[in-house]
């Protein structure tokens, strides 16, 4: 019986590879509504495996995991969805609920105002959009310079050219900052608990224990270990197998 189920699940996942994402999404939703969360997880996962970075899929997958009491995967997928759609209140709400099941608690360090402003401002657009904007400003600089030099030496043209040049530099800078933020790697603990060590070695001293669902930032990696930073500023090394990247 168990074998048959596994076979069936494998069959679904194989057929899923051929199916288009819309169909899979609809099927997964049906499974979820029918209360078959295990199958819903398999189906949503198959969409992710096709390479789609789709916020709704992550969100629904997280919901299915939540229903199955998989705290770690639920939080992981909510975080993935939120990364793609940072302003979505539904994701924020569900994530907050899932986080209540997390054992670890932190005194979050206050962020300096300037860093917060930079982060908020850069998050208006994606780094791609910021980059396009930078190109647009550079194009404007070129056009107004041309007008000034070869058509009419009006001072307004050169003024606009200078302003757009500065804007282009600024916007490219913001694009870079935003790109760095996009490149920040966060992970969620997916094993039930994990010891964080002082160095990337099993023999190193245990610093603290993290439990399933805790999110932390990755600073570095070495062999099978990731150097992580917790919201309260603690730093340590954790086994890669116990975490999953957002």
């Amino acid at each position: 019986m168990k074998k048959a189920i596994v076979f069936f699940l494998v069959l679904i996942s194989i057929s899923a590879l051929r199916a288009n994402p819309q169909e899979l999404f609809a099927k997964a939703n049906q499974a979820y509504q029918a209360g078959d969360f295990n199958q819903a997880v398999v189906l949503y996962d198959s969409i992710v495996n096709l390479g789609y970075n789709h916020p709704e899929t992550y969100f629904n997958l997280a919901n299915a995991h939540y229903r199955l009491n998989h705290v770690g995967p639920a939080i992981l997928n909510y975080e993935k969805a939120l990364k793609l759609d940072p302003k979505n209140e539904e994701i924020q709400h569900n994530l907050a609920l899932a986080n209540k099941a997390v054992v670890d608690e932190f005194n979050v360090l206050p962020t300096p105002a300037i860093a917060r402003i930079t982060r908020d401002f850069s998050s208006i657009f994606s780094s791609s959009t910021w980059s396009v904007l930078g190109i647009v400003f550079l194009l404007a600089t070129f056009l107004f310079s041309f007008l000034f030099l070869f058509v009419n030496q009006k001072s307004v043209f050169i003024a606009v050219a200078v302003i757009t040049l500065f804007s282009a530099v600024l916007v490219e800078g913001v694009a870079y900052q935003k790109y760095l933020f996009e490149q920040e790697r966060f992970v969620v603990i997916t094993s039930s608990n994990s010891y964080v060590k002082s160095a990337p070695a099993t023999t190193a001293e245990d610093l603290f224990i993290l439990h399933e669902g805790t999110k932390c930032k990755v600073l570095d990696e070495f062999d099978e270990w990731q150097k992580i930073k917790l919201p309260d500023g603690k730093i340590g090394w954790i086994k890669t197998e116990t975490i999953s990247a957002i």
Partner: protein
Amino acid sequence: MKKFAYILLLLACTTQLFAQVQFTAQANRYKVGVGEMFIVEFKINANSSDFKLPSFQDFKIVGGPSHGQSTSYINGVRSMEKSVRLDLMALKKGTYTIGAAKTEANGDSYTTKPITITVVDAGTNQPGSIEEKAAQLVYINILTNKNKVYLGEPISVRYTLILNANVGQFEYLETPEFLGFVKNDIEIKQIQTKQETINGNPTTTADLSKFLLIPQQVGEFDLGKLQMRLPTQIPTGRRDWFGNPETRTINQISTSKFPKITVLPLPNAGKPASFNGAVGNFELKTSLSRNEVKGGESVTLTVEVSGKGNIQLIELPEPQVPNSIESYDPKYKESINVLPTGVKGYKRNEYLLIPQYKGVYKIPGLTFSFFNPYTEQYETQTTEELLIDVTEGEIAKTNPSQNKPINNDKNEVTALGEDIGFIQLTPSEFELKGPSFFVQPLHYILAIALFLATLGLFVYNRIRQKFKPDYAAKARKNAGSNAKKQLKLAHQKLQANQIKEFYGELLAALQKYFQFKANLAPADFNTERVAEIINQKQKDGELAQSLTYLINQANSARYAPLTQANMKQDYDLGLKSLEKLEDLL
């Protein structure tokens, strides 16, 4: 008859004596050894209300004062006697005086005569005396297991009474003082006698007191002595009326000096960081009641130190229990047995742990260090790390907020529970996103290209501006040769005898020469300007005149055609003027 008369006389005397109040002080011995006891008795043969006793500061009051009273009737005469008895002990060698005692009887006050006591060295018991025999049969002894110990190493001490004869109610007179030691008494519920062999002789002994001394300071210690009064019953060798052996009680004082204790400091070499004062030979053990539990079930973690040494003073190492496991205050157990060779036992903490969350938790190994006085080295015991595998964990659920105040007027919409939102049913566009445009080459290429293009515009403009005066200079340089070429054309017209064309070419040659050489606009080409330019360089009236003539001649030839003209002369003049101009400009 004579005998009778004596009796009568004696009687008369006694009655006479009885009539007189007598207050006396008496000692049973006037010569005593140090530490020996004697009795002082004050007697009055009248009814006295109270005795004012002298001070006995030179002696130790071992017993009393005990009051006695006796009444007797002799020949109808009532006589009364009151006494106060004190048991005193001699403390120091010398001669001492016990002062007078005062009392009142029948309205008169009486005093005793002072008594002089001579205290001599102890041990003055005559050989073979009954006192010596008593001291041999019954005495006290201080037994220690060790006299040379390390700091913190317990010494077990026993006060043993050797009793080969019966002893009455004994009394401690002096006990050693243990400054620099911690004394731990070992409870003796009932003093029991036992048979031991001392110096090959079977002996009855009894442990009066057992305790442990734990040295707290380094050094040599003289702790004083133990002194006891032992009422010893010695058989006199005679038998009483009923044939039982007759005994006599000797109130002997027995003294035992506490052996000198040397406390050695613990060596500094190799002292481990976890050393906490434990001296002895110990073993540290940790264990879990089970290794696999479900969340919410309990596990007992036991930490035990057992062995021999100053186990009373040791502290059990505390285990580091992960925060996510609930840990309660430990249940403490100890068992300490004091043996003549030392102290043996264990101390044990039992922690009740209740894990809640799923996972494998570690309880790090503990270390316990102690100094082993037998090997004279520090030793450290380390236990293995313990693992608790919590197989089924709890997932913390938030409690529905039900304790809200009831409002009668309105029903506030209260949340019955919190749950995650439903899944999203309408998906956004499924798109396979590549890396950010920011890192794509097109972005860099476009940005760099546009920047360079703008830069290029300015560079091009600059070059254009820079090369403008260069054209003029080139034209200036070539002005002479060009003008000569033009004059060659004029020469052709001359040969063709085309007057109007000849002057046109001549004028053009001059005009272009001035345009390029002197930067004179074609519109400004007239005789005044030309003269002005030449005059700026040189006051050569001739050249200016020649040019003015040629220009006027050429102009007039163009507008009013000349029929007759000395074209050859004008050509030569033009050529000559041009050469002069070349030198000049």
